[in-house]
């Protein structure tokens, strides 16, 4: 039984709480133990590096330092948490000057930048594997057409060797195929949803997220699948942002696994765009 240090990040405790519930259920089925990092703090997300680079590293380093003491791999399901932690971990391990500066600030904690940071796609690949995923599915999802949506910051990490291609990633495609869904090819895997402009420049978010939704509809998909809480939220908020009609449900990757393993969604009530139509397509094997 694998044990991972689980770093939920702020979103998974509030606006995307149902993502956490879903991850926990699926990981428990596969025998992955999630040990939540004790007294974790915010990674700084997009705000910290805009305002102050040092602050961004300090916020990420505090968590990494505490996780290093545990020695397990660090599981960050949120794309922003993953991205920020990965950058700081890498920089601190390579840049002695930065390491000393940051460690002085977070003392008595000490961050060495030695931890292995994993996103949810890597966790499913590395700790379960597509063979086992395909073998153990309990429900037939072959009637559900999905488009995999990776979003920006999961693979776009300048200066860091990324786990998948920055222009055309395929790791989530493979997982969705193994889970038994019908994969649809589409060109918007990596398009930006409008990111953190949801409040400060709503029109931009509406325009970009609508484009993604319309493309998904054009391909005939039944749902969009993502692993990023901000992408999920922006797309799911489309009815409130100004796109009242023609919206497909936006599921988290772990929710597709929930469908394949348990035939239902524990967080269906948290979705703004209704998921019932898609869930009805699940068949008993």
């Amino acid at each position, binding site marked *: 039984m694998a044990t991972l240090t689980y770093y939920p990040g*702020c979103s998974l*405790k*509030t*606006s*995307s*709480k*149902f993502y956490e519930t879903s991850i926990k259920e699926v990981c428990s089925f596969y025998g992955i133990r999630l040990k939540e990092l004790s*007294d*974790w*703090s*915010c990674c*700084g*997300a*997009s*705000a*910290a*590096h*805009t*305002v*102050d680079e*040092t*602050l961004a590293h*300090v*916020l990420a380093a*505090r968590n990494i330092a505490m996780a290093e003491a545990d020695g397990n791999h660090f599981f960050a399901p949120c794309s922003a948490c993953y991205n920020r932690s990965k950058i700081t971990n890498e920089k601190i391990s390579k840049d002695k000057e930065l390491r000393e500066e940051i460690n002085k*600030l*977070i003392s008595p904690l000490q961050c060495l930048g030695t931890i292995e940071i994993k996103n949810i796609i890597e966790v499913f690949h590395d700790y379960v594997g597509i063979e086992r995923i395909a073998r153990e599915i309990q429900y037939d999802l072959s009637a559900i057409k999905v488009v995999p949506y990776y979003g*920006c*910051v999961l693979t*776009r*990490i*300048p*200066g860091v060797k990324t786990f998948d291609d*920055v*222009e055309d990633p395929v790791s989530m495609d493979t997982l969705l195929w193994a889970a038994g869904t019908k994969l649809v090819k589409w060109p918007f895997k*990596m*398009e*930006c949803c*409008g*990111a*953190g*402009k949801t*409040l*400060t*420049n*709503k029109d*931009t978010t509406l325009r*970009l997220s609508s484009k993604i939704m319309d493309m998904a509809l054009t391909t005939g998909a039944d749902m969009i699948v993502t692993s990023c809480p901000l992408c999920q*939220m922006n797309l799911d*908020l489309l009815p*409130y*942002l100004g796109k009242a009609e023609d919206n497909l449900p936006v599921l988290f990757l772990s929710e597709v696994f929930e469908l394949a393993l348990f035939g239902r969604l524990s967080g269906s*009530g*948290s*979705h*703004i765009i209704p998921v019932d139509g898609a869930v009805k397509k699940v068949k008993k094997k």
Partner: protein
Amino acid sequence: MDNLEFLHETEKVSGEKISTCYQCYKCTNGCPVAAEMDIVPHRIIRHIILGNKEKVLTSKSIWTCLQCITCSVRCPNDIDVARIFDALRKISVKEHCEADKDTWLFDSFFLDSVRKHGKLHELEAIMNYKLAKRDLFSDAKMGIGMFLKGRMGILPHNVKDRKQLREIFKKIVGERLGR
């Protein structure tokens, strides 16, 4: 090109070798918000090299940027363009000439909440932003919708050692976050 001071400053703050740009336009071509910008990315880079400081720092573009990082991963000279935009934000705020205040304002409230609790209290950051903008109602429907779906927490989540975290914030940004 008699004024290299601004180029050097931006290179220092961003940590990027901006002068290696040869104007291939890849950053602009991949940018999802280029159409909304007053000066498109490759031109911003050129203006930095030419020392047109005011033009760059008062441009709206540096705030239109979404930090989607497409430009950075496509640059043939490995210039992290998004990081340069990030640096320009910092410089323009320092020089009090930012063309758009909303992004910085929201990010400051975001970090203020993290300073207080150690974790982001979404509702608090959003309400503070809305109060500062004197615009409480434009997104009320969206907020209530999220609340009804269980996606908006009322109470903050706090880390145990909040004092230590506040000390760290103070050492790095001083009292600046308070605006």
